[in-house]
């Protein structure tokens, strides 16, 4: 009985019996289907098996690369990467499926099935292999998340680094005399408003190597900023300044909550020969404390980010500007309707189009790397790279705008007796201005966005800074850069969309 459904093709009779088809598919997956005259399905199965088997062999060889002997390689590969078991099992299931499918298809009077299950199994095998080759490890997203949190927090809220408090050392001192004389040397004066030091005794002798320790001075400090560390320094009679050391470490004291401290210091060795310090000299014991002066100011990182952001915007702007300048004339020789009148111009047209397509197909980042080789690091390299890419992209878009110009409007203006300039300004420019403006703004948008990353390869702008900050793990500063990029691009998106809407 004939089927009444005209749309479905009648099933072609299989060339072989189901058993033979199954055996054929067992020998070469897909062969059975081909013999059963579902050739396309057979070919798909065959191609899929060859591809996935090839991939499996490659992965096994990669995993077991350090071993010799194919048996060892295989066993080690499976041990090292148990995921290969899953792939292998899936492939075996698919293999069996293909045999069964060959048998069912080759049965006389079998309905032509869609083989959805077969396709699903093949896709599953490839999916598993893709998972393995891509080293997909969803666990990595969560496993070390707690370690990433501090860095990410800094990136997301970096403003602590945007401001800084200028600090400077305030030095207070007391003078001591060496050696002691008959006249008493005055000690320091207590003061009411400023920090001061008082030494006791007020005179003494320096230490001498392998002979004796110097005089021990008892020093009290008052009116210092509580909690801020104070460094103790000496200044000898020759105005040389040096840290006071205790067992090789600098002496640092922290004033108590009243801003006071008491310490004992032994007068250090001279730095000059005793002969040079003949007579009565005075030395200073200094207390230097780091204190903040003035209010909060923008940090160097913030200033740098602002400067580089401005540089970035100008890289994008200059590239767009140069791109327009070059693209406008080029677009005319890349417009088919203007170049189709003679074989020579057609050759030029195809040549220009081909060059533009090649330039456009290479990413600006790659152009930037090349530009850095030519002109060195810095914004100029970025401008060059973006200009080149803009030229190609804009020339293509402009020329398409010229191609779609309505010749009827030109005819109509010509018919009024207008001259060439009037035709251009009345009939051509009104037609190409809106698409030109639209494409230009679109390109400007792209260029600013590209200029933020072009610095990663040395093309200047904020990307340069961002790359460096990320490399030295300064996530706060990097965060500032990221914020600036995001804000600039968002503003630009908004503005360009707005302008384009008005023109188009």
């Amino acid at each position: 009985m004939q089927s009444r459904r005209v749309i479905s093709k009648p099933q072609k009779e299989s060339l072989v019996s189901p058993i033979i088809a199954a055996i054929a598919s067992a020998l070469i997956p897909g062969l059975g289907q081909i013999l059963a005259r579902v050739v396309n399905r057979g070919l798909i199965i065959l191609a899929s098996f060859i591809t996935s088997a090839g991939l499996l062999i490659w992965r096994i060889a990669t995993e077991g690369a350090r071993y010799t002997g194919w048996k060892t390689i295989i066993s080690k590969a499976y041990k090292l990467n148990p995921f290969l078991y899953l792939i292998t099992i899936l492939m075996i299931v698919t293999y069996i499926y293909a045999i069964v499918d060959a048998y069912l298809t080759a049965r006389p009077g079998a309905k032509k099935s869609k083989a959805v299950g077969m396709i699903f199994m093949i896709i599953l095998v490839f999916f598993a292999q893709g998972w393995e080759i891509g080293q997909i490890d969803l666990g990595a997203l969560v496993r070390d998340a707690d370690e990433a949190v501090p860095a990410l927090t800094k990136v997301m809220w970096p403003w602590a680094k945007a401001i800084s408090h200028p600090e400077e050392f305030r030095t207070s001192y007391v003078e001591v005399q060496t050696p002691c004389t008959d006249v008493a040397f005055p000690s320091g004066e207590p003061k009411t408003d400023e920090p001061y030091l008082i030494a006791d005794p007020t005179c003494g002798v320096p230490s001498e190597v392998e002979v004796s320790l110097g005089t021990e001075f008892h020093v009290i400090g008052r009116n210092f900023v509580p909690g801020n560390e104070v460094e103790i320094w000496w200044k000898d009679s020759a105005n040389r300044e040096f840290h006071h050391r205790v067992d090789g470490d600098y002496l640092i004291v922290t004033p108590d909550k009243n801003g006071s401290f008491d310490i004992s210091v032994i007068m250090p060795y001279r730095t000059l020969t005793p002969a040079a310090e003949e007579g009565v000299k005075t030395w200073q014991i200094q207390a230097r404390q780091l204190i903040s002066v003035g209010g909060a100011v923008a940090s160097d990182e913030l200033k740098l980010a602002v400067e580089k952001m401005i540089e970035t915007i100008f890289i994008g702007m200059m590239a767009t500007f140069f791109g327009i300048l070059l693209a406008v004339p080029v677009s005319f020789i890349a417009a088919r309707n203007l170049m189709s009148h003679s074989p020579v111009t057609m050759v030029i047209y195809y040549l220009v189009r081909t060059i533009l397509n090649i330039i456009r197909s290479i990413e600006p980042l790659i152009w930037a790397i090349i530009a850095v080789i030519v002109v060195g690091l810095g914004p100029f390299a970025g401008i060059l790279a973006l200009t080149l890419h803009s030229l190609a992209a804009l020339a293509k878009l402009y020329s398409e705008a010229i191609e779609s110009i309505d010749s009827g409007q030109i005819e109509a203006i010509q018919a009024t007796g207008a001259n060439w300039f009037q035709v251009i300004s009345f009939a051509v420019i009104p037609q190409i201005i809106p698409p030109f403006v639209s494409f230009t703004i679109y390109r400007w948008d792209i260029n600013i966005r590209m200029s933020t990353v072009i610095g990663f390869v040395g093309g200047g702008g904020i990307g340069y800074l961002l790359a460096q900050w990320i490399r030295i793990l300064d996530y706060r500063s990097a965060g500032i850069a990221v914020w600036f990029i995001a804000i600039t691009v968002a503003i630009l998106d908004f503005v360009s969309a707005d302008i384009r809407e008005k023109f188009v």
Partner: protein
Amino acid sequence: MLQIKNLTKVYPDGTVALKNVSFEVPEGEFLIVIGLSGSGKSTLLRCINRLIDPTEGQILWNGVDLSKLEGEELRKARRKIGMIFQNFNLIKRSSVFSNIMSGRLGYTQTLPSMLGRFTKEDIDMGKNVVERLGITDQMHKRADELSGGQQQRVGIARALMQEPELILADEPVASLDPVLAHSILKTLETLNHEDGLTVICSLHYLDLVQRYGSSVVGLREGEVVYRGSREDVRKMTDEQFKEIYGAEAERVGASIEGVVQE
């Protein structure tokens, strides 16, 4: 008086659009050119104002051979020939008024016109033309916001701004519905009657041809196959019409004409 003598146009690809076409158009005539698409109507009209350069032949207008003119002389001649188009060919993104003023380009200095500056007289003239064609309300709209009929009025206004002596109308109503077709052709008829402009118009509805034409030229494959006066046209039967047109010939519909004629 416009005399077309042995006009031939061969396109670079070898297509012969016009073959030895000769006819005369006396002053003040409403000449209708009929013929199938591809019969050479558009080419003929465009040869007259030299949007297309004829290969051979003469176009004598008031004793001057238009086919020989170049540069400034050609532009001066074009100013006196207004043209209206099937697709209106307005500058779509410009305002209606700017479109109309572009009719004065041939009379305006290059630099001021490029800056969109026209003389006071020209602007006043523009306002009068706008008023005459009843599109005052649309003056400041963008040209492409207007309906088809209104756009063709702007096209006519632009041609009128040239202070033309001759109007070439290339299928002016082919993109319009019958009511608008009559309205546009009546406007052309008024210009023909009141202002004494010579009109050469290509059409392809028999009833429109009979209603408006004061004489007819029929083209087929680039050759003149019919030449008739107003009376001949009035008497023309559908059969004769179909000889020129083939089976495609049709009428717009008399009933609609009746409504408009009131």
